[in-house]
């Protein structure tokens, strides 16, 4: 039995002293890169407005994000935790029970050390995205009257507004389509939904016979909202933060807080509800809320 321990087969993960009889999943394989960054990227410069391609592209992005999250060695480990390969033979008596000796997660270069938690904890509240506004260039001139007459769910009143207003049900959005070929897409609840919706509108235009492309898609604005679950003394907040706040209850019941970093505008209400807008990326909404939360806690109404 000891003989078996001396000649461990190569690349067997846990060098379990109980012997090679214990089935062990190979944890350390030279074939698996440690987040080498060489994950293959899908080709995005396609002219096809195929929705199937768009959905596949979004799924691939999600998978890549999950894969890279695993490989960065999140503390607590989701997925495979890298183990040290112990090459020396071990001569020990077998332990009672089945617990292998090398069970602890050693610090490898890939395991990040969690920074010491800051004095105040995070709020535990995540703002929910309510609206995303994006723009895209279809890359060709459009005849708006043709589009309004042939597409479904379209409005066109050139005397009032020089664009076709079109709507789709999934994702529930509204698009403004201009004769220059540029388009605005509003109403989506996430970045991917906004992009998918914009591609659907582009496909409608393409099916009407225009050589539509999908150029320079960009998220222009994101709006989020949340509830701190306690009433707020807006009058106090505007006194101490007057360089950032404007509060005129006779004009508007909410306090308008213009945060510098990140550059986000927050509407703060007595009820504790908060609206955040002006973000180009989701992280700015989250960051702005984490910044304002301790300030709001300081102005909690106690009566």
């Amino acid at each position, binding site marked *: 039995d000891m003989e078996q321990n001396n000649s461990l087969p190569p690349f067997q993960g846990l060098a379990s002293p109980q012997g090679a009889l214990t089935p062990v999943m190979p944890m350390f394989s030279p074939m698996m890169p440690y987040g080498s960054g060489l994950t293959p990227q899908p080709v995005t410069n396609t002219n096809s407005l195929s929705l199937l391609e768009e959905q596949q592209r979004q799924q691939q992005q999600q998978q890549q994000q999950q894969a890279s999250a695993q490989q960065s060695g999140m503390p607590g480990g989701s997925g495979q935790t890298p183990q040290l390969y112990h090459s020396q033979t071990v001569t020990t008596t077998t332990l009672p029970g089945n617990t292998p000796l090398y069970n602890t997660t050693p610090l490898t270069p890939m395991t990040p050390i969690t920074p010491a938690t800051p004095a105040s904890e995070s709020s535990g509240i995540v703002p929910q995205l309510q609206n995303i506004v994006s723009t895209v260039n279809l890359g060709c001139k459009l005849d708006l009257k043709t589009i*309004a007459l042939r597409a*479904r*769910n*379209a*409005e*066109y*009143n050139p005397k009032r507004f020089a664009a076709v207003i079109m709507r789709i049900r999934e994702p529930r959005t509204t698009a403004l389509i201009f004769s220059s070929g540029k388009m605005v897409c509003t109403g989506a609840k996430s970045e991917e939904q906004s992009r998918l919706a914009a591609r659907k509108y582009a496909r409608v235009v393409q099916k009407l016979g225009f050589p539509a492309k999908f150029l320079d898609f960009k998220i222009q604005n994101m709006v989020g909202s949340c509830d701190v679950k306690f009433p707020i003394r807006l009058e106090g907040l505007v006194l101490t933060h007057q360089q950032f706040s404007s509060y005129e209850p006779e004009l508007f019941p909410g306090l308008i807080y213009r945060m510098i970093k990140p550059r986000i505008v927050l509407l703060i209400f007595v009820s504790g509800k908060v609206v955040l807008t002006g973000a180009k990326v989701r992280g700015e909404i989250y960051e702005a809320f984490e910044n304002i939360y301790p300030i709001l806690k300081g102005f909690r109404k106690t009566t």
Partner: protein
Amino acid sequence: MAYQLYRNTTLGNSLQESLDELIQITPQLALQVLLQFDKAINTALANRVRNRVNFKGSLNTYRFCDNVWTFVLNDVEFREVTDLVKVDKVKIVACDGKNTGNTAE
């Protein structure tokens, strides 16, 4: 000039078919008859109709172009005080009520 909206109705179509059958009538005269029909039906509906019908259904599609609304509704109930009519699909073409003199069909 009144809306030519009502030419594609049971009444309007019957008139057009009858005019087509009357070979001795010149096309110009037939056109004058239809224009008179347009005026007559528009004033009649505006002045001589008093009843009110409610309808409710789900919206399938809508369109607004050239100041004309076109709706397609599904599973619609038309209610008058007296009775109820249900239909699976109804197409509604609507022009502006204020007299803008639009002659689009």
